[in-house]
């Protein structure tokens, strides 16, 4: 699926307010649909509460869900306000994920 469709699906799952960060377009454009669907499945499981969030040390009102692809090349962070809505989906390579992690304190 193309990036627009992917983002639209994410909005349908998490709400239209969700923002995107990192090289989401590049990541989604460069992986097969099967892997795109794995990311969407992870997002659905975050929404359902199947996946476990971690606290963000630098933002006390936020929690984050972490995604790692099987080959460890794609990392994702989905942030959510405690007891409230999902805020942002970050998808990128390892290096930028580490920077984002440090920024959030996870």
């Amino acid at each position, binding site marked *: 699926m193309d990036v627009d469709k992917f983002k639209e699906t994410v909005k349908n799952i998490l709400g239209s307010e969700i923002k995107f960060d990192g090289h989401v377009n590049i990541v989604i454009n460069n992986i097969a649909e099967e892997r795109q669907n794995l990311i969407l499945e992870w997002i659905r499981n975050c929404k359902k*509460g199947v*996946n*476990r*969030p*971690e*606290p963000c*040390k630098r933002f*006390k009102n936020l*929690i984050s869900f*972490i995604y*790692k692809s*099987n080959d*460890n*090349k794609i990392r994702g962070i989905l942030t959510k306000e*405690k*007891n409230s809505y999902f805020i942002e989906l970050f998808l990128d390579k390892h*290096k930028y994920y580490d920077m984002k*992690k*440090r920024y959030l*304190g*996870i």
Partner: protein
Amino acid sequence: MRKLEFELDLEHFRKIKDEIVPTIFTEHQFDLIQKRFTNKILTDSEKNEFSRTISKKMKAIRYIENKEELFIYGGEKIRNDRLIAAKKYLKNLSRKFKNKHILISGSFLYNERYNDIDVFVISKYDKEDYNQDNLHINYLTEDVYSSLFFESLRKLCISNKELLFSETKEKANIDTFISLYQELFNDLKENPKLAKQTLREFLIQSSFIGKTPIPDSFELKTQVDSILKLKRPEELIKNIFVKSVVLSKEHNKIKAMKGMIDSYKDIMKEYKQHKSYYLGIIRGFEEVIAIGC
């Protein structure tokens, strides 16, 4: 400029002591070389003396000998057959990646069984890793030299450049260590295949935080394999976490532990279904507080 082969046969070196002390090296420098090549920790002034005086003398000797351009670190742990093979690989790779700093490390050097040969190419730009035959080519940017990862890598590897001492600038502290502890617990549950890499990073940071020597590739592999063989690796990981935090000189550790407990208790209210998992993580923070360091 030609580079030197930094292989040193310590046994031979000790045998020829009378021939080289004080002609080439002073008694102190001789001891320092022995210390360096048995992976003992050098003080800052010893590091300085090593890089400013000893390295240069050894370099000059190698120039006279007209030897190959390879440097061997942790040689006592490297299998002879692999050393010969690694030298060949490194020579070929040096031709392929012209003027690039290349290192070979990992279990290929010391284990009978290995998955692939870890090759690290230091590059100005970040590039995707790839496999070529049995070689796993990893690109690293130059800032790796001041990382904890490199401090471990440099202890057991073959390099086409001399590895000079560089100060670790990686911002590893109680916060980053807590993050790794959380990530590791999560990986053990969600991504067991990826837990190995996170565990390696965790063990390197635990040594740094706990002020113990950074393990080399062989020591890391042994520790990682032993921990992941356990039925409940979380228990030992928690103990390593507690020990490292207690030994650390971080002044805000109790505050950090209390902050984490509060955060997890908060999350547990919203995610009751994961309560037992969170309680498992919290135990590490509680034990640090109980020790009262």
